[in-house]
């Protein structure tokens, strides 16, 4: 009995031993799926001796984690929600880091003719007009919010859509898997698309409209609200993410010869 208890203690304690400098950063699925994190995180560890633990969630959950103080900082892409987050006092500021873009993915046959569209607005109108199957993230993520905004910009209300519009309530990868299975259209970030392994009959049909740009921002959680957060480490990380070092890595990151991200951090806090 004693031996068993010792074993239990050892196992439980064993889990508590960690490196000295550790912080938690909530990031969006789309950022993580891009693979850029696998380049940045080891470099941060090497440069700052800081282990950044990534919690890969949707923007909605990332903001929630920040609100509860369960992470030290967040890196997301939903400007309106981020500004509300700062206004409510959960973060001292919002720092833009980089952007990538969203793309419209759909079946190679392109029954709605989205490929010929001249704007994102027109591409979506064509899909709606043809009632072609469309998979929506439906998970309150940054990508989902962006998609909702785009529909509204196109003069359409997603609430009123019927059968062809399918909110799956899942991450980007799962949504792409579903779209591949259904032969449906889907809005994805370019990084997730390029890294996606199960394309099936899907292809990139439309991209390039500036409204599709996707701005990532870094928000440290306010230590005034949650005294236990690692503010100093978050500051250090922010400094690194806006440095020339990060700029070179971000701008230089490519998949299949395509650049994904554009570094656009302002030199100092806005």
């Amino acid at each position, binding site marked *: 009995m004693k031996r068993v208890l010792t074993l239990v203690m050892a196992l439980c304690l064993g*889990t508590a031993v960690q490196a000295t400098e550790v912080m938690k950063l909530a990031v969006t699925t789309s950022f993580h*799926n891009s693979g850029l994190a696998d380049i940045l995180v080891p470099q941060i560890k090497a440069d700052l001796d800081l282990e950044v633990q990534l919690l*890969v969630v949707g923007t909605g959950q990332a903001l929630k984690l920040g609100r509860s103080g369960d992470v030290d900082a967040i890196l997301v892409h939903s400007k309106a929600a981020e500004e509300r987050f700062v206004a409510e006092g959960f973060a001292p500021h919002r720092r833009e880091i980089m952007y990538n873009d969203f793309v419209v993915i759909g079946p190679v046959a392109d029954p709605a003719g989205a490929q010929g569209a001249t704007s994102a607005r027109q591409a979506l109108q064509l899909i709606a007009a043809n009632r072609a199957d469309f998979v929506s993230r439906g998970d309150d993520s940054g990508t989902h919010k962006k998609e909702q905004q785009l529909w509204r910009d196109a003069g359409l209300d997603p609430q009123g859509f019927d059968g062809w519009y399918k909110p799956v309530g899942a*991450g980007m990868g799962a949504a792409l898997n579903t779209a591949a299975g259904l032969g449906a259209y889907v809005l994805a970030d370019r990084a997730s698309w390029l890294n996606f*392994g*199960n394309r099936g009959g899907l292809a990139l049909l439309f991209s390039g409209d500036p409204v599709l740009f996707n701005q990532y921002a870094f928000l440290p959680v306010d230590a005034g609200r949650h005294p236990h957060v690692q503010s100093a480490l978050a500051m250090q990380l922010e400094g690194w993410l806006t440095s020339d070092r990060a700029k070179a890595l971000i701008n230089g990151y490519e998949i299949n010869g395509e650049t994904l991200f554009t570094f656009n951090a302002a030199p100092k806090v806005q």
Partner: protein
Amino acid sequence: MNDIWGGLTQAVWLVVTLDAELLEISLRSLQVSVSALIVASLIAMPLAAFLSVKRFRMRRAVIAVLNALMGLPPVVVGLVVYVLLSRSGPLGVLGLLFSPTAMIIAQVIIIVPLIASIAHQSLRDLWQEYHDLLISMNVTQRQKMATLLWDARRALLTAALAGFGRAIGEVGAIMVVGGNIDHATRVLTTAIALETGKGEFALALALGFVLIALAIAINLAIHWLGRTEREGAW
């Protein structure tokens, strides 16, 4: 079909090359689930014995609740543990969220009802057999429980293995409370979910095959131990 074949070959490749990352997440899977199993057994087995020997007013209700909790969706457990352990939650000061300890807690909650229910079934049968004898010997409640637990140990092993199977294959709860953090809380099942999300079906399947192999190996090892024990005692 292509993916399954690819998954199998990739699984074999990962194992023979002793892939460092695979080793790490496999060991963490084992560490979390074995810890959860030990803690859960220490709770569930005495509870099952108590429910077998003690008649009290709410006994049937407790058993019914335990049976019902066997079907508890792990995601719900994860969410509850998450809310409790969150910095803004009642146990936030412990700072346990997104740690293996949090995953162990969630798994314990998931498998205690399962282990207790299965254990209770065999202990109840054994108690019917032993009842008259132990009563006639004026055995105390504690001794009754200890006797049942010891003599039903082989059936209890089955209960424990069922609990272990559910723990190591579980993903919903530990994803929520562990966060699937690379090098910290990533285990086989959460890695599988991640790779599936990326559309990397072959790698996801490979990890799945490793998980199955691991579960089979553990089961065989424990049954083998159980058999040597039987030969030794009798």
